[in-house]
């Protein structure tokens, strides 16, 4: 479902080469996998590769039964649309669309009819307790609400993999709790969530923690 093989990423900057990620092989089990490590240890780099935003210098990424690291930009977009969802730290919503349109946007890209899209988005918003915010734009929503809407959007096409890069990094602790609880609720059955965080409290709710340092995978801690 989600697997890396000898995954490495180098950044060339002038004369020096930064080894941001070094020879990482892992088969992500179902449930929540937290990624921890100090700033600059390669967490975001890894997530970018897993999500198919970027391409590795070496190694492979397999997602939903396909090797994705050598696909074209458009082919990777297609994989993202149908097989994964991403929650960013901030700037998560499309600013010209309101909440319900944001949630429905992946279905628009997938070619669903307007009625179907809005019906499904409304159901999701309702179950997230955000129905009363459906017509609000990002600028009229709190940070916590924005993140919850971003989660609803990531879930609308029912992907098997979710990625989240510090999803609570900009939130107060109460909103953070709500967002984490939502993520936990929706990581069931076969679904996998890869959660980058530097907050030990956040990492505690995961099933396992992978520790990184200087681009190297250090150790795994199984929690459940």
């Amino acid at each position, binding site marked *: 479902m989600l697997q890396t093989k000898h995954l490495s990423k180098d950044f060339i900057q002038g004369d020096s080469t930064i080894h941001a990620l070094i020879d990482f092989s892992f088969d992500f089990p179902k449930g929540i996998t937290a990624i921890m490590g100090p700033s600059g240890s390669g967490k975001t780099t890894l997530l970018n590769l897993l999500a198919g*935003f970027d391409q590795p210098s070496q190694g492979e990424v397999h997602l939903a039964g396909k090797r994705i690291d050598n696909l074209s930009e*458009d082919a990777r977009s297609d994989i*993202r*649309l149908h097989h994964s969802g991403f929650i*960013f730290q901030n700037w998560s919503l*499309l600013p*010209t669309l309101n909440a319900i349109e944001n949630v429905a946007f992946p279905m628009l890209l*997938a070619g669903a009819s*307007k009625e179907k899209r809005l019906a499904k988005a409304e159901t999701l918003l309702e179950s997230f307790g955000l129905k009363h915010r459906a017509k609000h734009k990002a600028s009229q929503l709190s940070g916590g609400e924005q993140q919850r809407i971003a989660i609803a*959007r990531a879930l609308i096409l029912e992907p098997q993999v979710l990625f989240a890069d510090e999803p609570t990094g900009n939130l107060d602790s109460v909103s953070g709790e709500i967002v984490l609880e939502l993520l936990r609720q929706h990581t069931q059955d076969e679904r996998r969530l890869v959660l980058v965080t530097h907050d030990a409290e956040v990492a505690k709710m995961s099933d396992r923690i992978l520790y990184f340092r200087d681009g190297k995978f250090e150790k795994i801690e199984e929690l459940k």
Partner: protein
Amino acid sequence: MELINLVFRNLKSRPVRSFLTWLGILVATTSMILFLSFGEGLRKALDSEMQNFGPEIRIVAAGTSAFSAPLPELSPDMLPQLEALKDEIGIETISPLVVMVKGGGFSPTSGFLFYGLNQETSPKLFLPDAKPIQGRLQPHPDGAVVGFKKAEQSNLKIGKTLRLGRDQEVEIVGILEETGTLSDSAIFVPLTVLQDAMGTKNYGTFLLNLNNNVDIEKASQKLEAAFEGIEAQSMSEAMEFAKKSLRIGDFIRFGISAVALIVGALLIANTIMMSVFERTREFGLMRAIGAKQQFIFGLVLTEALFLALTGGLAGVLLGYIGTIIINIISVNYVGIALSALTFRLAFFALSVALVLGLLSGLLPARNASKMPVIKALGRA
């Protein structure tokens, strides 16, 4: 449809900038319509004058310009002499004429333009389709037949009397149907009455119809050789000259309006470039969610085309209103509709606006769609 909705949302989220760009395209299209509609209007007017004007040659005193009213400087002896040459040159009919402009300078609408016609000549010489809407067609023997526009403007009715000179009066005996040509502003009266009024026995001009297959150029040359101090002007030549200068005018007008259009196109390009730049992260987000490059390309290009199409349509509409206003004014002052918004002009202006929209949207659309998602997200 979804795309249009997204495009519309985006334009609405930056209302002032979108509106100014739209206005730029509107003004550019309107100015092109107005500039070029002059050419179309004049061409239409010329064409109908040309079609309606039968005689191939007009004889005037040397030095009379092609479009001015000829003074009565041709001696009455010329008429029999011309009659004598009829067969040799191949003349079918000879229509002697005097023309008098009274008041209002050269403007046929504020002044009165009289044509003196002899017994054999009918207003049909100028207007083949001429029909009276009231009274009769022929001014002879003692009446005046008034063109439609002149009758309307000066409130001339059947039975009224027109004073031509000190002792010369004619009664209005006919009013002609509207034809849309300069002759709508003319008054046709008997030749001799007008000559009396002008105190002359001379003629102003002879209009000649030639037999079929007679070479107009050769006929003019023969006529100029046969008489001293005259000019035999071929009408088609005069019209050709006018059309040629019209074409030159078209080029100049198109040049000026092209500048306006290029400015309009740069405006769109600039707006779209700026908004693409500002939305880099937004496009990155769309791509991160799963939008393909083509989707972003379409979004940006549609935005440019949407601005160009709506701005262009509004420009054509405003241009149309403009031509109507110009025509109301020009009909009043010069007697012809100077401006015409033909279908082909509207189509041309709209196409130009759209093509410019397309061109100015292509580059930003390409830039926006080709950017790697990792860059657009600001994660690289």
